């Protein structure tokens, strides 16, 4: 029979515990452990919390890079349109394509606030496919803005990894 009478609160997570509990049932804190055990438990948990914060930062940067892609696409669409106004239909087609893609990345950016994993994976796949298709049409295009492209892809991959890391850390901390 489990004792329901509560006496005091856990000094780690402030949930109630009973006197015969050896460990906190909410956070695993060694309630009857030595001072050393309790300290190392707290510091271990703090390290995980810092790691979780870092993973969330990675996700945030990846989200921001979706907006950066949207901005750059819209910018080049407008520049291209302004420069090729007299060349007729082709300039317009590229302009419209860039605007549609830019809106797609804005939408993915907004979506990544609630569902980071599908939004970031979709964004990365779309970005990679755009680069490959451009390279098929004109192979030299892969070199233009190569640094920007590599940085963006790096941020997106780190963001996706961040989602998985945050997921694992939340389970280790046993929160949510």
């Amino acid at each position, binding site marked *: 029979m489990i004792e*329901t009478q509560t006496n005091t609160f856990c000094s780690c997570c402030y949930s109630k515990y009973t006197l015969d509990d050896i460990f906190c049932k*909410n956070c695993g804190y*060694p309630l009857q452990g030595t001072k050393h055990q309790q300290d190392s438990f707290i510091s271990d948990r703090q390290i995980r919390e810092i790691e979780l914060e870092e993973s969330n930062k990675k996700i945030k940067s990846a989200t921001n890079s979706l907006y950066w892609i949207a901005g750059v696409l819209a910018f080049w669409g407008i520049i291209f349109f302004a420069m090729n106004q007299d060349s007729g239909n082709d300039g317009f087609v590229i302009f419209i394509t860039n605007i549609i893609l830019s809106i797609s990345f804005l939408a993915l950016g907004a979506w990544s606030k609630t569902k980071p*994993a599908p939004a970031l994976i979709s964004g990365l796949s779309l970005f990679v*496919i755009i680069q490959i*298709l451009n390279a098929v049409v004109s192979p030299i295009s892969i070199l233009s803005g190569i640094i920007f492209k590599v940085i963006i892809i790096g941020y997106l991959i780190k963001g996706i990894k961040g989602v998985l890391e945050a*997921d694992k850390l939340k*389970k280790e901390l046993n929160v949510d």
Partner: protein
Amino acid sequence: MEDTENLTKVCHNCQSEILTSNHYCNYCGQTQNAEEIETAGFKWSNLQQLALFFVVQVLLCITPAIIKENSIFFNLSLDVVMAITTLIFFGYSWAENKYLLKWPAFSLKKLLLFIVIASLASVIVQYLVTHLNLILWNKTQSYYDTFSGHPYGKYLMILSIAIFPALFEELAYRGYLMQKLINIFDEKQAIYISSFIFFIMHFSLISFFWLLPFAITLGFIRIREKTIWYGVIIHFIFNLTACLYELVDYDELQHLLNSLQ
């Protein structure tokens, strides 16, 4: 005092009786979600395998654009290569995928309903796409051009456009890809990601309005029915209708209708 809300379970580590709501065992400190933590460790390497799948698919889909060849032989050999790669990926994760090949709750009524909806949707989409292509780019899109030179062109076209994609795209996207994603994220996110990748793999911005809903619908059906066969048949009927839409001779049809009256 008896409290029915306080359900108990046994801690895996010390075998003492604890409440099911406990995050940790209050006697030995063992975390109660050890299995979830363990599976979380494999997720990144599973995602890397999916990245490989994605790259292979992109390379295969892009081959016609690089080689600029459009013969019947080339098209069919590409179909065969895609089929083999799909089978390799699907077979590599055979243990977790094999349940999809079963058809647990076969319902003829449901199947017929899906077939009717798929063919109707396909006619509407074909009509819209033909007109959109004319309005926007002033061009007509034809699948039959490639196959028209061959005596059995029509059958080869149906093989290459209706049968191969229906079977192997379903095995690849609703089968392998989706199953891996379910293990990494959850069912809803798996549907969204696999549908989006299915859509962009067609390299056609304009088909956004029907490819995404199409893929999401197939995804939901696959999750609900726990089989890929509804998807395979819907996909087959959808593509077959698209083929027939192009192949049917409208003058002859008109003639036939007139003679009936």
